[in-house]
């Protein structure tokens, strides 16, 4: 199982029956493939759909219905469409139970940076899209990301260096090595990936990790 799949499988366990959820692109969408049996969530596409699924077969598409990635989409029974103001009123207003999204960096206070890469002096890209609204509005924020960057440096920091998407917003961090929870006391190591030792996690984590006496392995 590669890192992406592992993160996605673990993230899927955070999907609770009846939850309204908004999933970022990449690993979060992948997580939807691993939702546990008997758990039904209502997915939101922030362009204004509730309850939908991608269509991938020619002939099933409708040019007038696509999700927030412009993937042709089918609205499921019980689903509906709303305009963009309503879609974000619902997001910002606390009506989304959980969001799962990626990050460039996340820190032990729950700060998160996920939209701003340097593009020149005072310039940033690619833009936040709907992420900042989701981080502030969703009842639970689950951040999925690889534990380290390509250079092997920790993306789980004491303090984010890149411009923040939101301050103190993240509740749970899931990487290919560990599950960590942001608490008032600090960042708590909740689970390690199968076969990964606590010290291995600590070695690649810049953040101060609070390590309980016993840290269970993820059950995937």
């Amino acid at each position, binding site marked *: 199982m590669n890192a992406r799949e592992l993160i996605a499988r673990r993230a899927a366990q955070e999907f609770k029956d009846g939850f309204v959820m908004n999933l970022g692109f990449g690993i979060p969408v992948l997580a939807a493939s691993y939702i546990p049996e008997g758990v039904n969530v209502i997915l939101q*596409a*922030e*362009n*204004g*759909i509730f309850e939908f699924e991608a*269509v*991938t*077969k*020619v002939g099933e*598409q*409708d*040019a*007038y*219905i*696509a999700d*927030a*990635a*412009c*993937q*042709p989409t089918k609205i499921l029974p019980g689903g509906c*469409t709303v*305009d*963009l*103001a309503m879609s*974000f*009123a619902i*997001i*910002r207003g606390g009506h989304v139970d959980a969001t799962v999204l990626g990050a460039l960096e996340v820190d032990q206070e729950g*700060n998160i940076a996920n939209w*701003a890469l340097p*593009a*020149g002096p005072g*310039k*940033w*890209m*690619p*833009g*936040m*899209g*709907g*992420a*900042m*609204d989701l981080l*502030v*509005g969703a009842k639970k924020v689950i951040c999925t990301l690889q534990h380290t960057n390509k250079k092997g440096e920790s993306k789980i920091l004491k303090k984010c260096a890149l*411009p*923040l*998407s*939101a*301050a*103190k917003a993240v509740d749970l961090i899931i990487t290919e090595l560990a599950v960590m929870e942001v608490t008032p006391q600090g960042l708590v190591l909740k689970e390690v990936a199968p076969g990964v030792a606590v010290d291995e996690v600590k070695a690649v984590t810049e953040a101060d990790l609070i390590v309980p006496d016993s840290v269970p392995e993820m059950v995937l």
Partner: protein
Amino acid sequence: MKSKETALDAALNQVKDGMTIMIGGFLGQNAPLACIDRLVERGVKDLTLITAVNAYVGGGFGMGKLIENKQIKKYIGSHIGTCPAAVEQYKSGELEVEYYPQGTVIEKIRAGGAGLGGVLTPVGIGTLMEEGKQKVVIDGKEYLVETAIKADVAIIRGYKADKVGNILYRGTPNSNPVMALAADYVIAEVDYVVEPGEIAPDRVGTPGILVDAVVLGYGEEKTQEIFKNLWVRDKKLA
């Protein structure tokens, strides 16, 4: 009753160099593609573009063409990453970019159209979004003052219009209904124009009083074909 049905070019005559325009759609989907394509041909320039997100991924489609053709001086919205030309021009200094969170963009537009000075949002507190903005504290909690924005012209996409401008949407209306509130001149590109009364009163997504010109776009059949080809090309469909 004067019909608001207008020839594409007659409506687009309202878009002049240096103006601020809003364009509906989400990554090109339910966007006014015929109007955009014609704006590219007409070559109007130095535009400020207000939109929720940006062009369909990879460029060469919808509002991406306007950027590739260097008709946009300033972009106001939430994301440029789907449009390589926008990223390049931003880096080189040719394109000015003003970012707002997507939910803030749509509230700013709504405020502009609804006669509000702005809204107070918690989104962006503790981030770069605070820069240069007023804050208001309510019950001990900080909010950013996000001010109203309006455009000279809004170009929106509906499915059907009646001749007095009532718009029926199909699928995801996205930013189109809100933009219809917030411009001095509102152009609605649709697939069908019908007589008043043919759209049931409770099916109207944008009241006709907000719409200045109804123009026929590519029509339903061609729209379906355009997206089928696009999605097949990009392996979203097989």
